């Protein structure tokens, strides 16, 4: 995760570099360290360093890391010629390297020759079955081809071994959601909440999935998780506030006529509505009428 201070630092460096203030190498190092995706900038500033032979040689052995970084950024920007040049330079320097092999397989992938890329990745995995990056690339490859079930299979196989990798769980959850397999997605979000219990986004996504699944039990749980999202974000998450209202009305609808033991719901809903109303008044007062009329219908149904 990128913390807030790191992000501001990065943005400051970026604007400094953009305005010709120097510090390009520091910026590139930071991008690499934080693993953020700023390919256009990386490509631009990285190429400037690489094309200047004096600057390049002053990096020493770090030069090759820069080649790799620029190559990946270039693939992301579809400047395949640049990526190819970088990969060739690395190939010349490290002819036997697996890492360069990975880069070349990625180049094939970027070109869209799926079959060859798949073959290259498989042979890389045969040499080293624990290369997490290659595993993930294969998933991305399957996803790029639109083969979502294949991607799910690969991810499941990967997670069987690397089950503490929360990024993979997240990807799996998103794929499941896109295939409307909500039960499986719920499991993945549970796993994500377990690994990072204080990230409100996972709570929110989990609540969304539970709400979509429906059923009184899931709705009650969804409401709890919307509540936890509100708690974790300090009441700033509009989606969670809406979620509370929707959940409450759905629960009321389902349990109509039944004696409810859940006493806190009217409070929570009215509070959430009040918070939403306040938010609308502050940010978009012209939409307030739409909001109130929309909520009237919600209340009528409840």
């Amino acid at each position, binding site marked *: 995760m990128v913390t807030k201070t790191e992000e501001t630092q990065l943005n400051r460096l970026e604007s400094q570099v953009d305005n010709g203030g120097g510090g390009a190498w520091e910026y590139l190092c930071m991008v690499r360290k934080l693993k953020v995706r700023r390919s256009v900038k990386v490509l631009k500033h990285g190429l400037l360093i690489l094309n200047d032979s004096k600057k390049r040689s002053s990096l020493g052995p770090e030069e090759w890391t820069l080649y790799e970084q620029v190559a990946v950024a270039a693939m992301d920007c579809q400047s395949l010629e640049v990526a190819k040049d970088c990969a060739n330079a690395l190939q010349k320097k490290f002819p036997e390297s697996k890492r360069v092999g990975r880069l070349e397989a990625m180049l094939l992938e970027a070109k869209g020759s799926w079959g060859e890329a798949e073959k290259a990745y498989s042979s890389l995995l045969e040499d080293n079955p624990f290369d997490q990056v290659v595993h993930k690339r294969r998933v991305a490859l399957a996803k790029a081809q639109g083969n979502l079930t294949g991607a799910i299979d690969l991810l499941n196989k990967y997670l069987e071994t690397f089950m503490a990798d929360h990024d993979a769980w997240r990807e799996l959850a998103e794929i499941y959601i896109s295939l409307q397999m909500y039960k499986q997605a719920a499991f993945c979000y549970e796993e994500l909440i*377990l690994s990072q*219990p204080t990230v409100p986004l996972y709570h929110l996504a989990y609540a969304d999935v539970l709400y979509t699944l429906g059923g009184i039990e899931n709705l009650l749980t969804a409401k709890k998780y919307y*509540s*936890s999202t509100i708690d974790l974000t300090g009441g700033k998450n509009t989606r969670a506030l809406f979620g509370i209202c929707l959940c409450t009305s759905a629960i009321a609808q389902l349990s109509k006529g039944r004696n409810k033991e859940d006493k806190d719901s009217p409070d929570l809903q009215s509070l959430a509505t009040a918070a939403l109303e306040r938010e609308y008044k502050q940010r978009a007062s012209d939409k307030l009428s739409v909001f109130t009329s929309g909520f009237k219908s919600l209340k009528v149904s409840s």
Partner: protein
Amino acid sequence: MAEDLVLDTAIRDWVLIPLTVVMILIGILRYFVSKLMRSQQNPDAKVVREGQVVIRARNLRAGANFIPSKSFRARRAHFSNEENGLLHVPKGQGQNPQAQMFSDPNMAMDMMKKNLSMIIPQTLTFAWVNFFFSGFVAAKIPFPLTQRFRSMLQNGIDLSTVDVSYVSSRSWYFLNLFGLRGLFSLILGEENAMDDTQRMMQMSGFGMDPTKVGIFKSVSNRDDSLEVASGLLNLLSTGPRFAMLAVTLLLSLGHSIGLLFFTTLEMSLACLGV
């Protein structure tokens, strides 16, 4: 008397400095040799998996209150049921990493290589020092020390009358052997300098990988602690706490505190009662 001892400058030129230089060179040489001999270690699938299982189980234990109790119970069963749970270690198996180590020839080979790269140069230099420079005083440290240091600083000289601040050549060798780590970390980079004392410890532990033992221990520990966590879970069920937190938070944000105060009080009491 001790003050009368005057050291020949030739001792400095021919013993003290050469000994230090040789020790440094040997340290560097050994680093490169061990780098050459280090075989590309492919991690064992089982070991990788076990490490990941332990992390996940730890997360489960720590975050047990953040997921619905039904999901927690399903996961707990997956991790620690008696037949095929991930954390369940069959009795008598995996408990003895030492036995497992001997069954793996690769590991024994690695260990031997490690030890060879350490023992051979060490014996050679020790023999060399012993042969050429034994039995005389090589240096004097500029501050006085107590008698206890005699065995450390005057190894090889059996004179009780010499002042302790004089260092014998063999002791100088030992001081170098154990004290050059800082210098190596400067020359070879921080993480590359392998401490001799560390090596010694490793040898006395017979090359046992501490992480490996740790995993086995933690696997069985997690197994127990998950059981404990499930007991706690019944006390702290997820739901009402979250709802209450959200309500109090929204209340503090909102303005209608006075109106809703009594209802919240009632509700929170109800929540606490759950």
